[in-house]
């Protein structure tokens, strides 16, 4: 027993070392979060509008017959990075006409409405997910998060975190373009 205990540190070190060796694989991106939804139809959900936001609510049906690929953005007024992302999304809507759907995650409708009044509302539709139930369906790991949906309502890309850096935006754009190309 004592012998075994004395050798225990080596064993633990070897196990940790093996995990490190595995982790060094150059193809592994520690920042990437996989999604079970990729290439799957968007999940079933039906959310009421955010009161005072002035746009209709969001459901699965609204994503089925789109004219062009759209973004579904998970946001909340309590989320600071969402503010940073908001300007980028607004520009994307105004300059490129990308349809933008909002999923207002675990947020009081009056706070969300105030937030949209302060910053402007680029969303075509916003579903109020007060309980976070729809967020579970979408497999949301945090706020903000953005999904690219093709015209048939299939999830083609998922971005975790705010879209602010140029390469974030480039990836979202290319996912949108790929979805548009596949549809036509």
């Amino acid at each position, binding site marked *: 027993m004592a012998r075994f205990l004395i050798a225990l540190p080596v064993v633990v070190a070897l196990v940790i*070392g093996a995990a490190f060796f595995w982790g060094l694989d*150059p193809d592994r991106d520690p920042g990437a979060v996989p999604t079970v939804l990729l290439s799957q139809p968007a999940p079933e959900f039906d959310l009421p509008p955010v009161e005072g936001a002035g746009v209709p609510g969001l459901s699965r049906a609204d994503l089925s017959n789109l004219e062009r690929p759209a973004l579904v953005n998970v946001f909340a007024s309590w989320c600071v990075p969402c503010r940073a992302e908001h*300007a980028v999304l607004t520009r994307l809507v105004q300059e490129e006409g990308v349809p933008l759907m909002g999923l207002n995650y675990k947020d009081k409708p009056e706070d969300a409405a105030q937030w949209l009044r302060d910053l402007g509302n680029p969303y075509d539709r916003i579903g109020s997910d007060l309980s976070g139930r729809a967020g579970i369906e979408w497999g949301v790991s945090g706020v903000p998060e953005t999904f690219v949906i093709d015209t048939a309502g299939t999830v083609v890309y998922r971005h975790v975190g705010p879209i602010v850096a140029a390469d974030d935006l480039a990836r979202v754009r290319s996912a949108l373009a790929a979805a548009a190309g596949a549809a036509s």
Partner: protein
Amino acid sequence: MIPELGHFALTLALMAAVVQSVLPMLGAARNNALWMQSAVTTSVVQVALVGVAFLALMRSFVVSDFTVRNVVENSHSLKPMLFKVAGTWGSHEGSLVLWVLILAIFGAGVATLGRNVPDGLKARTLSVQAWVSVGFLTFLLFTSNPFERVFPPPMDGQDLNPLLQDVGLALHPPLLYIGYVGFSIVFSFAVAALIEGRVDPAWARWVRPWTLAAWISLTAGIALGSWWAYYELGWGGWWFWDPVENVSFMPWLLGTALLHSAIVTEKRDAFKSWTILLAILTFSLSLLGTFIVRSGLLTSVHAFAVDPERGLYILGLLGITVVGSLTLYAARAPKLEGGGLFAPISREGGLLVNNLLLATATAVVLFGTLYPLFVEAIADEKISVGPPFFNASFIPIMLPLVAIMAVGPLLSWKRADLPGVLSRLKWVAGLTALAALGAWYVDTNGPALAVLAIAAAVWLLSATLREWALRIKLGAVPLIASWRRARGLPRAAHGMTLAHAGLAVCIIGFTGSSAWKEEVIKFGEPGTEVAIAGFDIRFEGVERLRGPNYISDTGTLIVTRGGEPVTVLRPERRSYPVANSQTTEAAIRSTVAGDLYASISAPSDEKSLAAGKWTLRILYEPLVGFIWLGTVMLVVGGILSLSDRRLRVGAPRRTVATPPVGATPAE
């Protein structure tokens, strides 16, 4: 020319290290005094050569030599001089040169100062130290040459990451490295002792000052990093349980355990194999830190340029060092035991519990840090482990540690009289109860853990002061006699008192600033008012100012309390056009009671910008200043202890038995 000279010096240093890693070890085995002596020479030669390389690199930064790729990537001609110098260790390559330099300095330190260390042990220790040197010098030369030239040289550099252009962070890496790398010499001592197969109190006495020196630096380095995060990141927190913070914290926890277990080895000839294991593991965790920061294995706010090849190389180094030394340990440690026996209630017993709790805490932090990687490797799922896990698991381990820590110094060696000790702590217990009631009264609906933590801190602080007062017989004898006794106490005793009290002060700060923090995040335009913690704050607007290599948007916040002006806070948002990035400079008004903390961030769209709208983040962090005060006490306590004559590295050994330094005087 000079960069090539630096490169050449590094190559020569590698040669010296190779010689040193073989010759003294053989000399010790064959009892060849000349071969053993060679370690002293090669150690000094190594430090000189690496010093030349370091200065050569620093010169390239100082004169902005843009023919050197490293300078191009990490400096700019307009950067203030301090940050040009600090740029030397701002990059992966430069910081490795610093790493190797500190490694060499510690080796040369033992070679020149350790005159009373027996030749055999010294030769073996320096040889082991040279193995580590060879590993890192080859890593530097083969994968991360800092002196690489670039042609054609660009007109100007790409600037150092602006977040790092800060006095706190200019000094943070050197201190942290002295800590990390300082444990290397302790590791070398441990491996040398395993090779010799002998550990005795003398061994512990030689090792302790080096451990202490490394520990002091690591404490200061971590505190400086934490302070930097507090005022520079603009999030208003000082610890985030980020993987990179954790990897610097783990060697600290285990190093603290080592510091205490080495006392037992020194005084009582016990805990030998445990002390050796701690010495090996502490340095292993330091290497682990280096590996994680430089391999991009985990996502973190800090990271050097990620390169899998480098990651693989350090993993190899880490593997050889850790697995090699632990295997040697497994083979040799069973022969080491023996030594003084002791009753469960004794100084040894207290230190044993201290060690077990610190080791458990380290294991918890290690587990939490690596768990996401394991889950991903086995189940291919991504998870993250955040502050809730660490707070829930780490604090319950720390509270009993603090409770025992207060009593430990009062216990005598071998067998202690617990009722007697506790009876001396009557007033301390009363004070603790009072503090708990006070904390509960101030915030009746607050977290119960906060009340408990405040009680623990007051218990530790007052028991520590009580122990010190007992030792100098404060109150029992005339004041002048107490003063004489205080002067007669070894400095290590004062150091311990100060360090333990410092931890108590830190805990007050940790608790206040996390449990009773107030925070307001608001969209502000000129005229917006915010009320927080009794202060009224009026946002006046933002003006654009120009710095040496940045543009600053400085906000003005007028703070009043009950109509009386208090202060004006000027948080900044700085843009560095060359590096194309931004930093936050929080404005902080510090008082003993707490910090009023303000930071601003840019409006998210043009419309708000035109309207002068900014996001204001205002926090009130009660008692946060105690954290910095407490860490200063920890560091000064450590330095005081290090300056103790008994520990001084060059001090001649006394022939008479030293009385146990921590013992309570007989009454």
